[in-house]
């Protein structure tokens, strides 16, 4: 857990009295009443209920900061600007240069969703799937100083490959996996990104139907294998399929976050890919991420 990751850009700021109302109208969370000094995670969905972007929203008082967790800042900013009514006072500002975010896992039971400030750096702790992430946000030079301090304290700096591995092992999406497969939030254990009482938003019908049925057609698991499993759809020996959304190699093992039928999602289960008779890939389910999957 003693590691951190720094990413520059993928930050937006909304300024104006109607910033939260605009965000509320396009996202999965009840953001209209997000108080100053609070944060919230949410998704932007398409009409099929699939994730277009995932955000951490921080109410800084005069400004609302958005962290685009999956690198989809451009499309979300455009959506916000296009969705803004002529009656609403909101400016959308892109902070792609000069601002960074630092991500660090936390183990102890923290206070979630509170925004704290020290100088020009803000931080908050949010829940993502099974983990809590501490996120610092501020000018790049200040985030770099913070990162160097952490390195001096023994924290490793995760490069992109390490970051993808960190995410996959914890059942998180990766930007490329999201872009290609666009799962539904409930499939990838992102219930905490959704308000089930806020009313209509794009994709809400799908979410409401899945929630009402209390069953998923697919659920996310973390798999380990000793040879590469390319991203994409694969048939399994004995029937069934998996969708490998992201895959990364580390020390001779391949790790992936995949979608499979909930009945097959059991920790320790071994799956065999139906590729060809000479190249069987053995996949071990290392973790499952949905609490409401079928037992």
């Amino acid at each position, binding site marked *: 857990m003693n590691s951190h990751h720094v990413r520059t850009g993928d930050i937006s*700021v909304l*300024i104006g009295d109607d910033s939260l109302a605009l965000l509320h109208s396009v996202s999965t969370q009840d953001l209209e009443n997000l108080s100053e000094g609070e944060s919230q995670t949410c998704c932007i969905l398409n009409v099929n209920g699939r994730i277009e972007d995932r955000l951490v929203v921080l109410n800084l008082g005069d400004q609302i900061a958005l962290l685009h967790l999956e690198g989809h800042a451009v499309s979300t900013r455009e959506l916000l600007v296009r969705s803004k009514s002529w009656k609403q006072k909101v400016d959308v500002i892109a902070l792609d240069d000069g601002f960074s975010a630092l991500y660090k896992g936390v183990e102890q039971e923290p206070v979630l969703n509170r925004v704290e400030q020290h100088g*020009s750096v803000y931080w908050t702790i949010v829940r993502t799937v099974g983990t809590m992430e501490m996120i610092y946000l501020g000018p790049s030079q200040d985030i770099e100083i913070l990162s160097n301090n952490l390195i001096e304290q023994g924290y490793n700096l995760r490069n992109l490959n390490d970051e993808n591995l960190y995410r996959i092992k914890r059942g998180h999406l990766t930007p490329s996996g999201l872009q290609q497969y666009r799962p539904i939030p409930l499939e990838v254990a992102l219930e905490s990104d959704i308000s089930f009482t806020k009313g*209509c938003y794009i994709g809400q019908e799908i979410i409401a139907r899945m929630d009402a049925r209390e069953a998923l057609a697919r659920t996310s698991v973390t798999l380990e294998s000793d040879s590469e499993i390319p991203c994409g759809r694969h048939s399994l020996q004995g029937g069934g399929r998996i969708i490998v959304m992201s895959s990364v190699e580390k020390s001779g093992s391949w790790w992936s976050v995949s979608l499979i039928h909930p009945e097959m999602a059991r920790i320790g289960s071994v799956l065999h890919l139906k590729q060809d008779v000479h190249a069987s890939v053995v996949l071990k389910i290392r973790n499952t991420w949905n609490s409401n999957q079928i037992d």
Partner: protein
Amino acid sequence: MGLINSDGFSLPMAVQVEVVDANLDATDRAMEAMIGAMGSDVETHVLIVSVEAGGCSGHMYDMQIIERPDDTSAFQSFQFGDITLLIHNKDSTLLNGIRIDYRDTLLGGGFQIENPNADKSCGCGQSFS
């Protein structure tokens, strides 16, 4: 509190908005309901029909009776009898060709908008895309 301060040079994003000369229609029932809603304010007030983000289809209609604005240069104006109806230029593409109706039913009643630009509408009739 804020990430950027007034010393910074940060321009807000903007998109180009297409403006068309819109065409609107209203049924007799809708006009009667508008007159009923506005009462004696028809001289001093206008009805504004607008589009907002939201709803399960992405856009939602909004209707408001407001005092006649001094500056209507950003609006297109329509006259239905004594009633002035305004739509903002920004909404002109989405509202072009709409027909406003009124249904006097206990459930799902009120003003209804038939929109030829809508690919998809919500069951409640208030959201469209």
